């Protein structure tokens, strides 16, 4: 499995060492290695001293395949930044703030339930958007849009001096 542990477990040298040991233990010649498919971190596919560069030193014909899904995620993130700067509203920030506004407060959730009832909607919690989880933004935006009337009513009717609340209330 080439698992590594310890403080340097994520370093390219340590990862490559574990892989090389595995190659040697199974008597796999480097010539037989056709491709390496990894994620796109510097430790993996960086031009110098990465796992990929070490593989290429062993066999220059190896095809290094980065992760296209990861690239799509970063593309969407870049595009969202450009859009947000132009309209001065960041959907990603709204999703994050909205989740944390209700996350740890039973009182706020209770108030939100009242607004759900008022708007004749069933209660569903705000989903957590994690920026490193591929495209979780879509699910979060869908949930917020679904509950938009209740959430809008909540933020228009409540009053807090909190910075997070002011951002959501804009």
């Amino acid at each position, binding site marked *: 499995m080439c698992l590594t542990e310890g403080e340097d477990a994520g370093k390219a040298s340590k990862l490559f060492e574990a892989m090389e040991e595995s190659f040697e233990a199974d008597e796999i010649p480097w010539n*037989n290695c056709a*491709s390496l498919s990894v994620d796109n971190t510097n430790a993996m596919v960086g031009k110098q001293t990465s796992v990929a560069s070490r593989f290429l030193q062993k066999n220059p014909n190896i095809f290094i395949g980065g992760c296209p899904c990861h690239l799509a995620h970063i593309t969407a993130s*870049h595009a969202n930044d450009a859009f947000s700067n*132009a309209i*001065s509203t960041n959907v990603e920030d709204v999703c994050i703030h909205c989740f944390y506004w209700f996350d740890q407060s039973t009182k706020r959730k209770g108030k939100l339930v009242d607004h759900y009832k008022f708007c004749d909607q069933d209660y569903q919690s705000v989903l957590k958007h994690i920026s490193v989880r591929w495209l979780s933004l879509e699910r979060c935006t869908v949930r917020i849009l679904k509950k*938009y009337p209740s959430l809008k009513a909540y933020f228009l009717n409540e009053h807090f001096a909190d910075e997070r609340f002011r951002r959501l209330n804009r």
Partner: protein
Amino acid sequence: MLEPALFFSQAAISIFTNFNLLLQREEPTVHILKASMEHLGKNLATRIIKPTVLRGISSISDIDLTDESIFIEPKSIFLGGTTKATLNRLLSEGDISQHKYDSFHKGAYLYFKDALQYIQNKFPIKNEVIHNSVWVDVEKRGKPTWSNIELFLLKNSNQTCMEGVNNDKVIEEFVD
């Protein structure tokens, strides 16, 4: 501006989600990667680039994004039916100004342009292995040329499994 921004994000992100879902599977996908990347790029390009320009290009890497004349005017960009309707409602009800309405269109334009730019710069669209691996797809075995196969024979000629392989026989099998 939040409501139309949410609608726009929802519609725009689904373009990327489709790409991701297509490639997240157990089976190898290297043979569909090139076409998928091109499809994703073209899907984004159709939102901001004039159809007459797109008709003349074979790959999204051929699009010159520095040429401003190829772009559709920001106000004419297709934002999605719900987004546009929400934006128009907010404008007619006076909730947003004409300036904000225009900024939204400009933002949408930048969204697609930046995404396209990133794809051109970072995606392995011109990678020769990905380009030539179309022959892996059994359904498209009739389409590849010998050069698609030759690359893999040359690249992997040192492998143990390739010892004693006669290229002439491989050509014969390919032609058959």
